[in-house]
């Protein structure tokens, strides 16, 4: 006997995969650095570009880049974007600004979020510094840096950062 009901037109088939990731050598250097309130990049060797966050290779030359180099936690904003779209994963109040910041000592920009700055004052060339979590909360995670915020230093002229913008 068949029930008189509407046909089945869809099924729900959730997929949940769990991974146990090894961070690799490069990310381990970086994450352990964060736990010590430091930002660590890597390079292939002396005189070579410092890459942060480090991923194990210098993409221009495809060589292993595992020599650790500490960079500053302050730098110059080279690009930014104002986000107005909500997301479950984001805990910042909307709208907020995400930035590419060229940390002093690094050769490639670092992605993060800017807080404590009126939207109409965010600009390329402005100087900012990491706002870390309290010392007792430092851990090998990017969340050790809560956000970046402006600091009272003169803007860097566009020509000096042009290639990173």
């Amino acid at each position, binding site marked *: 006997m068949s029930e008189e009901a509407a046909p089945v037109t869809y*099924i729900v*088939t959730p*997929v949940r*995969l*769990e*991974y*146990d*990731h*090894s*961070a*690799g*050598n*490069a*990310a381990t250097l970086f994450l352990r650095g964060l736990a010590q309130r430091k930002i660590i990049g890597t390079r292939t060797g002396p005189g070579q570009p410092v890459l942060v966050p480090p*991923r*194990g*290779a*210098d*993409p*221009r*030359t*495809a*060589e*292993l880049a*595992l020599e650790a180099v500490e960079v500053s936690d302050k730098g110059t904003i080279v690009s930014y974007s104002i986000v107005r779209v909500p997301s479950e994963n984001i805990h910042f109040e909307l709208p907020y600004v995400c930035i590419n910041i060229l940390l002093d000592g690094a050769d490639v920009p670092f992605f993060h979020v800017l807080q404590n700055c009126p939207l109409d004052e965010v600009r390329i060339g402005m100087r900012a510094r990491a706002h870390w979590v309290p010392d007792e909360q430092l851990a090998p995670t990017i969340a050790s840096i809560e956000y970046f915020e402006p600091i009272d230093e003169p803007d860097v002229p566009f020509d000096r950062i042009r290639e990173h913008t």
Partner: protein
Amino acid sequence: MRDVAIVSFAQSNTAREDRNEVEILIPVVQEAVKRSGLPRGEIGFTCSGSSDFLQGQPFAFVMALDGVGAWPPVKESHVEMDGAWALYEAWVKIQTGEVDSALVYAFGKTSSGDVAEVQALQLDPYCVTPLWPDADSIAALQARLYLEGSARTERDLADVAVRSRRDAMDNPHAVASGATDAETLLAEPYRCSPLRDHDCPMTSDGATAMVIVAGDLATRLSERPVWIRGIDHRIDPPALGVRDLSRAPSAERAASRAGVLEAPVDFAEIDAPYTHQELILREAFGLSDGVRINPSGGSLCARTLMSSGLNRIGDAALRIARGEGDRALAHATQGPCLQQNLVCVLEGE
């Protein structure tokens, strides 16, 4: 048709890697490029095989380009398949005349995720994946059908494992190896009947790279280039219940189109992750009992998912380059129960 040869090959397999994918790949690519004699900047095309599901990240394969060199910009492609299919695409690219050389690479960290669940995702998402069968169980369904429909026994399967592990002792890139005998293996309990642990592949993490070049360039670069005389791949229907799982028609067809039987083959490197699959494929390829199978130990002894097929081709090529054979069949497989098969015929000068 342009003549295309393999001029170098390098691989790395470990039971479990702490390095990330790029860190594993870089030394392997550097070795293959160096051994090819071709400067990296002169290689015309780059093609890779990998599966994002092993890392659990969409577009994960893009990160591997850091380790391959994509600056200045390169012609590049990727297949969500074993590197053997990346080899096929690179071979086709050379046939078009657009390039004369290619770097082919593959990588995979099988250990990061639960490989049984990851592999269940390649099955029918409506009717099969929601039952979450692991790959060993799926293979076991095929193994039982094969054993019950043929004169073969579990002992024949154990013999494949014994031989493979013994041969793997001479392969520094094998992950499982050792001297044993069929009685010892058969005394072990089933993992999933009728398969035991030794019938299933030793999964590993690793990377693989190969350089192929066309025509005269091959003879300039290599003392004994290994020519790809034929290469073809075919696929059978995905629904497990529709196929006769005890045979591999796509393998038969690929072998025929690759020209396997045009001349005798000295040895074969067959990508058979399960022991019964070697027997099915041996029959599919029409190989006589005298042909040596998997002198490397095969995918049973090292199975880096996404690399193991390319490894069979590379292992065969290196053996020919060393003068230990002149003509070989090399094979790669994908999908459950030998659904998709690639065959190439390799010949030394």
